[in-house]
């Protein structure tokens, strides 16, 4: 099951890249498409942050991950490198669980 999804999603992602290089320019130059596509990653990434911080399965929960997110927000605002942001959040959650 995981393999099927891995291959399907990889093919889809590759197809999108190939389409950009191959399709007639005017197809993708449609103004509404140009405005809409950049909004999708913003909304999806924000939704991923929210759901992966405040839920387990279908249940809303408030646990150490919320504190970890606060630390990550601070790290991002300080323009810390990617790995530092992720490591700071993970370390926060790990330390709070130890206490």
């Amino acid at each position, binding site marked *: 099951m*995981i*393999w*099927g*999804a*891995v*291959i*399907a*999603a*990889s093919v*889809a*992602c*590759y197809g*999108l*890249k190939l*389409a*950009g*290089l*191959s399709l007639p320019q005017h197809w*993708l130059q449609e*103004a*509404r498409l140009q*405005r*809409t*596509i950049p*909004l*999708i*990653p*913003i*909304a*999806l*990434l*924000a*939704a*991923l*942050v*929210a*759901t*992966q*911080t405040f*839920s*387990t*399965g*279908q249940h809303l929960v408030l646990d*150490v*991950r919320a504190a*970890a*997110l606060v630390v*990550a927000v601070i790290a*991002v605002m300080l323009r810390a490198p*990617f*790995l530092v*942001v*992720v*490591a700071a959040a*993970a*370390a*926060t*959650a*790990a330390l709070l*669980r130890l206490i």
Partner: protein
Amino acid sequence: MGIAIASGAYAISFGAISTAAGLSLLQTGALSILMFTGASQFAMVGVIGAGGSVWTGAATAALLGSRNALYGLRLSSLLNARGWRRPAASHFVIDETTAMAIARDDPALSRFAFWSTGLALFSLWNLGTLIGALATHVVSNPRLLGLDAAPPAAFLALLAPRLRAREPLAIALAAGVVAIAVLPFVPAGVPLLIVALLVALFGWLRKP
């Protein structure tokens, strides 16, 4: 080169998160080799790790990959890739290579920047993935290392550079609220698809 090293570090966290989400070493490596677009890879393993269906994860990854089509559009005249070069170049059409290529004034320099960035990134991205995955593979309980708190931080770090104006910030906040609001009522991962649909409608219907 700096950008490739930074992405190698970023790949380490991908390898770690993917393995902690329950993907095997081979599956994690396959994503970095075959999908090779960071945000989509993180989303796919993030959804699976949170208990969502693997197909919801795949759909989310594909939706996040849609922006690469726009990058390809911007790059196609610069690269002028024909014959076997086009399918090869396509694999490297991602945020970083696009940024490096369009920053050059001369098409020859653009092409050089695109291919050199692409090759360096692809190598370090896969090396980083392997290191992260192997390191996490030996850990029995990823929660003890706080690895369940790592994906949201990774998504936040990917999101932050896109929030430099008021409208994207408002969209991000609204997307987070909507996702949380519908979460108790639909299977895991589906809130992401609902949010994607709503933002696509918003982008399509609003006045320029």
